[in-house]
């Protein structure tokens, strides 16, 4: 057997990310084995739930490499847990593919650490690009105080100026808050404001969207890639979410993609099988990250001369042109992210569904 380790935050504050990740990973291992495994060997998955706690994540990482003898790890739903796991991965020389956004995971490059999601900075750049193209330059920022929101806020604040965007309001909210109208009222009152960007995931963005409608704000509203899932539309109700834009992956708009788009087949296949096992839960970007990580890992194991961690690592680093749900991965010695801005697409919510803007 080939043992693959996974550590995700199935429960805890990041469970809306970790849960689809866990489902995806389990599903893909099953599919893989149903197809006969890798090079004739069955894959065996050892998956732990760190409930969002980096210390637990570190313990589980130690357990995976020391006790379970896995050949590689995927996971690290949040930046915090990813950082905890990667320390173990580096020390014990077991490759690790992270599912978290922060750039510091792969910058500077660490030999055994890779990641699949875009960075927050890329999301900011993508959004700002779209804003500029619509002539929106004075914007208000509202962010969740959780790791995702705070980290994206920090990145957006850093790249705003160089993108020609002026941030005139900077508000925050707690991830479980019931009402954000005071913050939105203050943002709306800023003179000359042209658009609002929300960096956050979970239920907060849905509440923002509903409060937005309640207050009758008509400025364009941008959300982050953290809400890229149909659950968001459901929670905010389609009417309120109409016209909201966000940087998303091909995953949400599989049907709309040009048939020639290489991602189309991958995305549709993943969506179909996920929705079959997920009992009604819609696909989300995060499950997509896990999907891509597993694809990269399994194809690397298949290509590697032996199922030894070091060999697998080399094979991962050699991955090029691998088409995932998030984008097309081209890893190299100096790039352990392997994605560029083109992987992001600006989506708009339209009639309760998704529309490709470009």
């Amino acid at each position, binding site marked *: 057997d080939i043992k693959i380790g996974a550590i995700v935050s199935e429960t805890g504050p990041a469970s809306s990310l970790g849960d689809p990740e866990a489902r995806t990973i389990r599903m893909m291992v099953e599919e893989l084995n149903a197809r006969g495994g890798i090079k004739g060997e069955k894959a065996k998955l050892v998956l732990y739930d760190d409930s*969002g706690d980096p210390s637990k994540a570190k313990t589980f990482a*130690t357990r995976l490499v020391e*006790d379970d003898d896995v050949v590689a790890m995927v996971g690290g739903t949040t930046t*915090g847990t990813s*950082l905890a796991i990667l320390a173990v991965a580096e020390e014990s020389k077991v490759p690790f593919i992270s599912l978290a956004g922060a750039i510091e995971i792969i910058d500077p490059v660490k030999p055994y650490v890779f990641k699949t999601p875009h960075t927050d900075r890329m999301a900011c750049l993508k959004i700002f690009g779209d804003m500029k193209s619509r002539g929106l330059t004075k914007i208000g920022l509202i962010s969740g*105080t959780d790791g995702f929101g*705070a*980290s994206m806020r*920090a990145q957006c604040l850093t790249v705003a100026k160089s993108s020609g965007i002026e941030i005139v309001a900077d508000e925050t909210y707690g991830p479980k808050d019931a009402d954000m109208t005071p913050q939105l009222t203050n943002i709306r009152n800023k003179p000359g404001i042209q658009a609002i960007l929300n960096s956050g995931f979970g239920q907060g963005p849905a509440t923002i969207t509903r409060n937005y409608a309640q207050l009758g704000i008509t400025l364009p509203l941008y959300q982050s890639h953290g809400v890229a899932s149909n659950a968001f539309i459901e929670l905010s109700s389609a009417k309120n979410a109409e016209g909201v834009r966000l940087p998303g992956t091909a995953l949400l708009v599989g049907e709309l993609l040009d048939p020639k788009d290489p991602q189309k087949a991958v995305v549709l296949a993943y969506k179909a099988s996920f929705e079959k096992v997920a009992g009604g839960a819609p696909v989300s970007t995060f499950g997509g990250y896990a999907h891509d990580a597993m694809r990269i890992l399994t194809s690397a194991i298949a290509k590697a001369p032996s199922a030894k961690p070091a060999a697998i690592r080399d094979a991962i680093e050699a991955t090029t042109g691998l088409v995932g749900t998030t984008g097309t991965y081209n890893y190299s010695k100096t790039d352990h992210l392997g994605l560029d801005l083109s992987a992001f697409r600006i989506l708009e919510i339209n009639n309760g569904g998704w529309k490709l803007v470009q």
Partner: protein
Amino acid sequence: MRLSSKQSTLLVLAALIIVSPFFFPSNYYYRVGSLVFVNAIAVVGIVILTGYAGQISLGHAGFVGIGGYACALLPVHLGVPPALAVVLGAVLSGVIAYGVGRPILRLKGYYLAVASLGFGVLVAMVLANEGWLTGGPDGIKVPDPGLRTLLESLGIALTNPQFWYAFCGLVLFVGAWLALNLHDSPTGRALRALHGSEVAARTAGVDVAKAKLNAFVISAVYASVAGSLLALQNRLITPDVAGFMHSIELVTMAVLGGAGSVLGGIFGAALLTLLPQVLTVLQDYEHVVLGLVMMLVMIFLPAGLIPSARRLLRGRGE
């Protein structure tokens, strides 16, 4: 007789720390062991505050956070060696506990609980919000204290988890020893007395406000040291170590083990640290079983693991 109970506790503890590794098949077990010790250090502090003095704090994780971030920030910003940062963090926690404790310890019971909770929430919030200093919700890296390399140069080669197992075990042993000394000392008796009746303790000459403050400061130092050790061995610290849930967890460990008993607190910490590791085999049912175990322990051993077990044994003897 009392004395022997202290010695036997220390003996049991030392035996557990030293003998357990002989049964450890891999580094992972050292890692879990050291986490047990870290939690136990903080819990021994809670035992002093809650078990001895009867004061409930739901904000103690705040001090864990302070201790942890001291090890992350002081070396980077002030060039303090990480090992020394542990001490400075403890001093800082003590000072903050002194300042915070003076006003809030006038409150009683749940009101003290909510006030301390407020303190903990504030600490966690500052750690999460002041990203420029603390790295925000995703946490911050902690430098290596270099103690392991020091040992290595002395010819003692340990893996990272082994080193932290030994180090935290040692600190826990010292912490337990101090707490046991306190239990049967005049100060400790005064704490336990004011737990029973504040007026009576007062009329017996106990300066209740000061005694409570002492307990609060001491327990804050324990929490801080635990936080520092956690940060140093994880090489990373995040604001949720200071969060409400962690505070609750610490109190739960203390009560499960037996709030008034040092050994109980350590067992409580072990139980709640090990259980999630053991329960991973149950996958989805992990939380169900964890909750169930907590309830069952309290139903059948209402005074906590150790005191109730002791009572049962003693009863049989009579």
